[in-house]
Structure formats: C-alpha cells, structure tokens
C-alpha cells in the first residue's frame, strides 16, 4: 500500500483531518488536489468545472433545489450543490434561476449538472489520494 497522500502532499493537507480536506475539495473545485500537491490536475479540474458551470449559467440553466413531489429534483439538487461554493455564490447573486423558455435551458442544465457531478467525483478522488488508495 503506498504512503497516504504521497510525498507531494502539502503541510496543510497533512494537518487537516480527512473530512475537512474533502469538504474543501467540494467547496472549491480542484482545491483538494492542490492541497495534495497535484497542481496540474488541480488546475485542469478547476478550469473544466468552472467553464462547465459558467456556460451552464450563460445558457440560462437552472440551479435546481428540491421540489416536493418531484423525486428527480432531489437528485438534480444534489448534483447542482456538488458545484460547491460556485453554487452558493450564484444563488446569492440570483443567477441560475433558469428560463424554461430559453433555447439553451436544457443544455444549461446539462452543463450545470455535469460540472457538479464531476466536482463530487473529485471529492472521492481526493479521499482516495489522501488515504493512499491512489498513489498519483
């Protein structure tokens, strides 16, 4: 089993408890990898998720919240909240209200959901690197 985190892990990451590291990885796309010393991947992931999120908003996608009686909205909300701090900032500025009549609405949703789910995968990847399941 390889050493957890590996030699590139930053001092801060060594001090942080795993749940806090995962929380940071969720809040800011790429931050988990950055703290673990995976700079290139951190930058790539950050850019990919940021671009997906911004394109989703520009296309009038909706940052969905759970609606009573609509089970699928719960899944959509989880995926959207997966965007971390981007989700909360956008909601704060009333972005991502979603215009159902806009031509890009469905595409916008797809971009927002994709970005959120990719960020959730990054949280799991951060966990795997931190505990030594993934040594690169």
């Amino acid at each position, binding site marked *: 089993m390889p050493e957890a985190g590996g030699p590139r892990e930053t001092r801060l990451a060594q001090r942080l408890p795993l749940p806090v590291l995962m929380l940071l990885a969720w809040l800011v796309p790429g931050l988990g990898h950055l703290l673990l010393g995976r700079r290139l*991947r951190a930058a*790539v*992931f950050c850019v990919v998720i940021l671009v997906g999120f911004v*394109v989703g908003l520009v*296309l009038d996608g909706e940052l969905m919240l759970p609606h009573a009686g609509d089970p699928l909205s719960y899944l959509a909300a989880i995926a959207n909240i997966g965007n971390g701090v981007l989700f909360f900032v956008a909601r704060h500025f009333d972005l991502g209200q979603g215009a159902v009549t806009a031509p*890009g609405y469905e*595409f916008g949703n797809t971009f927002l959901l994709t970005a959120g789910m990719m960020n959730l995968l990054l949280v799991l990847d951060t966990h795997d690197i931190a505990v030594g399941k993934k040594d*690169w």
Partner: protein
Amino acid sequence: MTLDHLTLMGLDALLIAVFFSFLWKRDRRERWHHFWKVFAALLVGAVALGWLMYPFPRG
C-alpha cells in the same frame, strides 16, 4: 449565448473527456488516448442515438 446543438454537445463532450482523462489516466500518452476515445464515443454515440430514435414519434 446562441450556439447550435452540435457545438454545445461537442463542448460538453470536450469537458467530460478532459476531466476523465486526467482523473483516470496517469501519463500523457494514456491521457491523449483516453481523451480521444471518450470524446469520440460521446459525439458518435449521441449522433447514433439520435438517428436510432428518429423513427419514433414525439410525445
């Protein structure tokens, strides 16, 4: 933003392919190979699925 469906689908496929090639593959060559595989699969798969659904009525 007014982009056609194919361009938007291509952009989404591009982001996903880049993401998974960096998530799953370690070295540069493997990443390129994986990137093109995922990118092509998403694009060709979507067009093929569209054609397969063409005979079915809407609604």
